[in-house]
């Protein structure tokens, strides 16, 4: 089994990511299906104890994987917004970058 660290830490990280993942301010994140499912699963299978049996380890791995997914998606989206989110410049802006102005052609290209 992969080295996963503390299950409690995974759980905390996961719940934190779920809080970030709430797109709309309306519904409290604790009432989302995902939050409920994660908490219920950890509780039901006692995945926070010190020594885990095989089934618990598998659940911990699943939780750690989901945590990685949520965290990476959030980080990737943030990077995308910062570096790739502004779209293209208009032709006027591009011309302006090198000191030109686009010609006026009121009648079209003719």
């Amino acid at each position, binding site marked *: 089994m*992969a080295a996963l660290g503390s299950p409690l830490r995974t759980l905390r990280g996961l719940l934190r990511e779920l809080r970030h993942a709430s797109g709309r301010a309306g519904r409290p994140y604790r009432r989302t299906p995902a939050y409920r499912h994660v908490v219920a699963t950890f509780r039901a299978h006692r995945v926070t104890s010190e020594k885990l049996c095989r089934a618990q380890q*598998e659940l911990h791995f699943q939780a750690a*994987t989901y945590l990685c*997914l949520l965290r990476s998606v959030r980080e990737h989206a943030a990077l995308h917004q910062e570096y790739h989110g502004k779209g293209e410049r208009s032709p006027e802006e591009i011309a302006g970058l090198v000191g030109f102005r686009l010609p006026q052609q009121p009648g079209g290209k003719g």
Partner: protein
Amino acid sequence: PPERKRFYQNVSISQGEGGFEINLDHRKLKTPQAKLFTVPSEALAIAVATEWDSQKDTIKFYTMHLTTLCNTALDNPTQRNKMQLIRAAVKFLETDTVCYRVEEPAALAELQKNEWDPVVTWAEKRYNVAIGSSTSILGPNIPASTKETFVSHLASYNMWALQGIEYVITQLKSLILSMGLIDRHITVEKAVLLSRLEEEYQIQRWGSVEWAHDYDLCELRARTAAGTLFVHLCSESSTVKHKLLQD
């Protein structure tokens, strides 16, 4: 094309005849080919619903990896059957990242040996096969018996899980690293690190460029994590009997 605005308030899941469905307000989510979006696992449905509920003003499809994987499983746009998927997956072994070694620079060759040898050895022991590694441009010579062992092993997975496995292999460019993940021998972070070993080596030497390196790293982690989670959720004994997963 302009991004699609979030057009729904509430996301919920419900259980239909075929499995679990996603509701966007009163509308049922459909696949790109207009089929009803149904998944065999409740946990998977909840995770997909979370993707949709995470969208703020616009829907960023490029962040919704689980939704994409389910759509692929439901629509099967490449029209491949189980054996074609398996053969495509196993074919990757011939160009498996962890088997392809450099001779220079010496530091990178050493890094590859230290980081990749253990996972190759693990796979050889776990599956009782010979794999090895090679510095030849032709790559390693994988015995036919090794390939057949992996073909047999992958045949034990259902079609949904196989879509996920093939997806992870394509992302990591390695069958061995993917099996390491599926078998829970390594974490997603570790698998991605091992897949990107040469990039990481170059980054340590020359520095990191956030808008390229970190961007790629996060994207690969996200896709790999999604694929792995997808495989495990579709292979759980509670899900496996579901008729959606019958070939």
